[in-house]
């Protein structure tokens, strides 16, 4: 999994693109993708322009194309659909390499392919140049609902734990001579996924207990998320009992001195 630093899609670097504030990058990505999607399918030079912009940013960020291109495979399902379009859609017939296809379908296929590729490339660039934690902080700054950000941060935190668990189950299966070669063995894989779901669900319950044990009451205090600079003075809203608690948790006078010596 994500070796060393950051997440699996992250390409470590210190360029201007890496250092740009995450919330600006997210805003730029979203508006860029919206513009791309709104572009008419036959505006070929404009798409070339978009691609040039992305390549320029990639060069600026020192992210090599050999890193980005293999990761484009996520769009394969769209590519398959795009390739089918000229054959399936209705319209004026044209001859391409001796095959009769629909001209409108051909243009739509190009549009889908171009928009998809540019969109995925732009997202990959964002992922390559932004740490997951910075991304979450950026979303928070953009006032994405706290619950959504929380869910995403849990996903980032536990993705590796869950894939690890999946890998251990895989090793345990193979060690007992199992090979997933043909669809007859799919039920076993389905049961693995079921077991993984239950384990993950139970882990969720244990995590929740551990959070309760540390005084969790439904909101993650903003102060816990803020960095070391003490920019947290605005933190922790929505806690009616806060003042009352703070008065109870002041360090014991004798204890402060003791702790420094510890």
């Amino acid at each position, binding site marked *: 999994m994500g070796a060393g630093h950051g997440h699996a899609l992250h390409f470590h670097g210190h360029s201007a693109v890496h250092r740009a504030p995450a919330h600006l990058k997210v805003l730029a990505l979203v508006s860029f993708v919206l513009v791309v999607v709104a572009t008419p399918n036959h505006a070929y030079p404009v798409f070339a322009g978009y691609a040039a912009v992305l390549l320029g940013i990639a060069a600026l960020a020192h992210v090599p194309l050999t890193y980005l291109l293999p990761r484009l495979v996520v769009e394969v399902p769209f590519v398959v659909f795009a390739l089918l379009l000229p054959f399936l859609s209705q319209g004026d017939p044209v001859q391409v390499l001796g095959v009769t296809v629909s001209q409108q379908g051909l243009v739509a296929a190009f549009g889908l392919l171009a928009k998809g590729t540019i969109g995925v490339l732009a997202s990959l660039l964002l992922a390559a140049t932004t740490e997951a934690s910075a991304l979450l902080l950026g979303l928070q700054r953009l006032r994405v609902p706290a619950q959504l950000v929380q869910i995403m941060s849990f996903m980032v935190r536990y993705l590796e734990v869950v894939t690890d668990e999946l890998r251990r189950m895989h090793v345990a299966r193979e060690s007992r001579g199992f090979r997933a070669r043909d669809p007859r063995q799919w039920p076993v894989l389905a049961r693995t996924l079921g077991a993984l779901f239950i384990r993950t669900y139970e882990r969720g319950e244990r995590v929740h207990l551990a959070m309760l044990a540390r005084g969790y009451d439904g909101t993650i205090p903003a102060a*816990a998320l803020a960095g070391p600079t003490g920019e*947290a003075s605005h933190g*922790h809203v929505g806690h009616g009992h806060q003042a009352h608690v703070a008065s109870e948790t002041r360090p014991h006078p004798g204890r402060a001195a003791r702790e420094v010596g510890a």
Partner: protein
Amino acid sequence: MSTPVLDVAGLAFAYPDGHQALFGVDLHVHAGERVALLGPNGAGKTTLVMHLNGILGADSGTGAGSVRVSGLPVAKEHLLEIRRRVGLVFQDPDDQLFMGTVRADVAFGPANLGLTGAALDRRVMEALEKVGMTAFVDRPPHHLSFGQRRRVAVATVLAMEPEILVLDEPSSNLDPASRRELADVLRSLDVTVLMVTHDLPYALELCPRAVVLSQGRVVADAPTLDVLTDEALMTRHRLELPWGFDPAAAVRHSPAG
């Protein structure tokens, strides 16, 4: 004696499915003590621990008896203060550490108590210092080794300045070096400790006093050495020492004893 840090009186509890886990448990732990809670699987240790900070209680099943922490009864109206006083360290650090960085995770508890800014920062660094993990403050927890994660898990609770630290199987899955490092950390802490464990040598090393829970009852409460050398008691409650381990010799040869 003064008010015990932990005062469990006549605690009984049955889960909603009818399974009765505790049958009238009495337990007192005084300030500064380190107590091992021993017992076979299914003895009710976890159920007891979950009662200490109000995660389980009368409303999650049928129960009787009371738990007081430094005189404060465990009840809904002061749950947050109870959870500050009782620091629970769970067995799997991946359950305990759920935030993106070590700093955010250690800050989670004290921030829930209302601390912010520089005071919160100080609390985080002090807690990490006690477990020797200050160098890892900005690392994501899942990039630490298992032993390091266990120590950070202890720090997340220490940051709340608990009056009693409750550890569930602290030595499980640790390699011998990490196990010893954790023992050093626990010994250096100036805090009352209740340690649930199957690791009897660890209990002997760290806890002068041991309480044996079996089938939901306290069946022994004595100096750890006496418990571990009482063969009849040990066999009756499915407790076994590791092969070749002689508690009396271990105590004789330990630098402290």
